[in-house]
C-alpha cells in the first residue's frame, strides 16, 4: 500500500542556493545544496564573489606596497598574514632580523591568533543558535584590538610587519597591558566553556557532525585546527619552526573525540579553545624574554631582491598559509602565489557534508572557520 503511494507520488530533489547573501556562510560564499527533504545529497561551494585579483595586483606593486593587500586576505588574522609574507620576502633578500622584531612579531601574531579564534568560536556558536557567546568573545577580542591600536594605530588591517622589521616599536605600556589582558582573559575561557563548550545542546548539535577522518583530512590538504581536530599533531610552529618559535615551550592540542567521533565539529571547535591557552603561554614567555633594541634598523631602504624564488609558510589561525614569490630582480615580484588555508579547508566540505541536514551545513562551515577574503583573494 505504502509502496504504491510512494510510486505514484512525484518527489523531487530540491536545489537550495545557500548564499551568497546568507547569515551564516561567513561572507559571500554560495553553497549549492541538493536536498532530499532536509537531507543533503550533494553540496557544492561556489566561490569568487570576493575576488579582487590579489595575486595579479602583486605583480604591479612593490614589495612594501603589497603588505596592505596581504592584510586583506584573512582579514581576521592580518598580523599572521603579514608575518608570512615578510618572511618570504626576507628569505629572498637574505637579511637578518633584530631579535626584538622577532619577539614583537610573535607577540602580535599570537594575540592575533587568539582574536581570530575568538571570532571563530563566537560565530560558530552563532551558527548553531547561541547568540550570547558571540558577544562575549567579541568583548574580549575588542581588548586585543585595543592593544593593536596602541601599537600601530589600526584595529583590523595593520600594515605593521614590514620587510626587515616592524613599522613602530611597541607602545611603552604595551607589555604591561598585554600582561593584564592575559590575567583578565584566562578566566573568560572558562566562562566560554561553561556557556558553550560543555552545553548539552551545543554538544548534541556538533558531536558526530561533519566528521573528517584522518585520511580524508590529509588527502584534501586540510590544515590548522581543522586538521588537528582530526587528531593529527601537525603545526608549522613545531614541525617546521619559523621565526623564533623554537624558543618557546608550548603544546599542540589535538582533537580526541571527547564528545563524539574523532574529527567532528566539536573536536575542531575545542582544539581552538585549547589553542587559545597555548597562545597565552607563548605570550607569557615572549613578554618575559623580549629584549630591548631597535626595530627599524634592518628595514632596507629599497626592497629589491635578486632573481630567485622563495616560499615561506606560517601557521595561521585558519591553517597553513604559504607565500610563493618569484623575483626577476626588480622592485616588483614577478609572481606571488598564496596557499590559502581557508581555500584548501573548504575543499573538504563537499566530501563531508552529504548525509547531514541543512542545519549541519552551517555547523560544518562554522567549524571549518573559513574566511572568504582568503578563499577568493
Amino acid at each position, binding site marked *: 500500500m505504502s509502496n504504491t503511494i510512494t510510486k505514484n507520488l512525484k518527489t523531487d530533489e*530540491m536545489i537550495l542556493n545557500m548564499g551568497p547573501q546568507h547569515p551564516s556562510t561567513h561572507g559571500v560564499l554560495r553553497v549549492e545544496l541538493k536536498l532530499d527533504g532536509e537531507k543533503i545529497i550533494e553540496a557544492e561551494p561556489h566561490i569568487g564573489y570576493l575576488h579582487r585579483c590579489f595575486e595579479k595586483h602583486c605583480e604591479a606593486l612593490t614589495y612594501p606596497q603589497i603588505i596592505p593587500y596581504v592584510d586583506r586576505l584573512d582579514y581576521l588574522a592580518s598580523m599572521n598574514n603579514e608575518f608570512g609574507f615578510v618572511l618570504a620576502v626576507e628569505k629572498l633578500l637574505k637579511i637578518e632580523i633584530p631579535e626584538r622584531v622577532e619577539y614583537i612579531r610573535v607577540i602580535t601574531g599570537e594575540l592575533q591568533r587568539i582574536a581570530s579564534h575568538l571570532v571563530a568560536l563566537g560565530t560558530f556558536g552563532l551558527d*548553531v*543558535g547561541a547568540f*550570547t557567546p558571540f558577544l562575549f568573545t567579541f568583548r574580549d577580542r575588542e581588548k586585543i584590538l585595543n592593544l593593536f591600536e596602541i601599537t600601530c594605530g589600526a584595529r583590523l588591517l595593520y600594515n605593521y610587519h614590514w620587510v626587515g622589521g616592524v613599522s613602530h616599536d611597541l607602545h611603552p605600556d604595551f607589555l604591561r597591558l598585554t600582561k593584564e589582558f592575559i590575567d583578565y582573559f584566562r578566566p573568560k575561557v572558562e566562562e566560554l566553556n561553561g556557556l558553550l563548550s560543555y552545553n548539552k545542546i551545543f554538544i548534541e548539535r556538533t558531536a558526530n557532525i561533519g566528521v573528517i577522518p584522518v585520511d580524508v583530512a590529509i588527502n584534501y590538504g586540510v590544515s590548522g585546527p581543522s586538521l588537528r581536530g582530526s587528531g593529527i599533531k601537525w603545526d608549522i610552529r613545531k614541525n617546521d619552526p619559523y621565526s623564533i618559535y623554537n624558543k618557546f615551550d608550548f603544546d599542540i592540542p589535538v582533537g580526541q573525540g571527547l564528545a563524539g567521533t574523532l574529527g567532528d565539529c566539536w573536536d575542531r571547535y575545542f582544539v581552538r579553545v585549547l589553542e587559545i591557552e597555548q597562545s597565552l603561554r607563548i605570550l607569557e614567555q615572549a613578554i618575559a624574554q623580549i629584549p630591548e633594541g631597535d626595530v627599524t634598523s634592518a628595514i632596507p631602504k629599497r626592497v629589491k631582491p635578486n632573481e630567485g624564488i622563495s616560499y615561506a609558510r606560517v601557521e595561521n589561525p585558519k591553517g597553513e598559509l604559504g607565500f610563493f614569490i618569484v623575483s626577476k630582480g626588480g622592485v616588483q615580484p614577478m609572481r606571488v602565489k598564496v596557499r590559502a588555508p581557508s581555500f584548501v579547508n573548504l575543499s573538504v566540505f563537499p566530501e563531508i557534508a552529504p548525509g547531514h541536514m*541543512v542545519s549541519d551545513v552551517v555547523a560544518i562551515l562554522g567549524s571549518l572557520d573559513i574566511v572568504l577574503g582568503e578563499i577568493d583573494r
Partner: protein
Amino acid sequence: MTTIFNVWDFLLILLYAIIPLAYIIPFALMAVYAERKISAWIQNRVGPNRTGPIGLFQTTADILKLMQKEDIVANGADKKLFLLAPIVVFIGSYAAYAALPFTSVYIGTNINLGVLYMVAISGFVVAGIIFAGWASDNKYSIMGSLRSAAQLVSYEIPTLFVIISIFAITQQFNLRELSEMQTSNILNWGIFGFDGLGYKRILLIPVLFVLMIILFISTLAEVNRTPFDLPEAESELVAGFHTEYSGMKFALFFLSEYANMFAVSGLVTAFFLGGYQSPFGYLGNLLGLSWLVPIEQVLWFLTKGILLVCVQIWMRWSLPRLRMDQLMRVCWKYLIPIGFVCFIYITIVMYL
C-alpha cells in the same frame, strides 16, 4: 426563546473582544523592549537607550518605521494567501486570549472547554504559518513552515497529556474554575496539588512538577522560541517562514509571536501557578473593599505571566538551537512517554 439582535449586547461583546487587544499591543511593545534590554544585560551590552527615557519608546519607533515601509509582495507569491497568512497567525494568537482567565470577573468567554479551546485555537497558527511558507515562493520559507508544522503538531501531544492529567485531578476544563480551585494560598496552587485533595497531594506533587516542566517546554516549542526556534532559525533559514515579509505584515507576525508568548505563559500559570490567585490573601478582602480584589487578581496574573515570559527570554539568550531530528526526539522519546506515565500515575492515585 428568541432574542432580536441587541445593540447593547453587541457593544458588550465588542468591549470584551477589545480588552485583550488593548492589552496585547502595549504588552508586545514592552516585551520586545524587555527582550532587548534583558539580552543586553546578559550580553554585557547597554541595549536601547536613545529613544525616550531609557529607550522605552524604541519598539514604538520600530513599529512606526515598519508601518512606513514598502509592503513588498514577491513576484512569484500567491498574493491572496500571502496577505491572509499574517492575519490568520494573528487571529490564532489573539483568539487564544478569549479564554485566558485574567480575573474571576473578566474572562473573554467563560466556556467550559476553555483549555481545549486554547489548544485548538493555537493550532490555528500552524495554518497561517504554512500559508506564509507556501505563498512566499521561497525555499527557505517552505522549509521553515514545514518544520513549524511538524513541530507544532508534535508538541501538542505532550501539552494534551498535561491537560488530561490535570483534568483527571480537577475534572475541570474551565480555566476560571481551575483558577478558583487554587485559591487562598500558595499551597493550593496546581503545582502543589489542588485544594481539597488531602493526603493524595503528597503523592501528586512530584508528578505535578514534572508535568509543569513538560508543559513549559512544549509550549515553548509551540511558540517557536529558542531552543525550539527552528522555523525561523536565522542562521540556517534566514528568517524561516517570514523571510519574504516586510512592513506591517512582518509586524503582525512579530506581534503575534509576543502575544503567543504571553498566552502560553498564561496557560502554564492557570494550570500550575494559581492562575490569577494571590499566593497569600488579598488586600481587598482585608480592607473590605471587594472591588479591589479583581484588580489585584489582574496584577497577579500579569506578574506571573510576565515572569514566565522573562524566563523564555532568558532561555533564548543562553541556549543554542536544537536540530530538527533532535527536536522531534525530545518530543517523541522523552516528553510524550514521560507525560503518558505521569498521566497513568495520576489516574491511579486519583482512583485510590
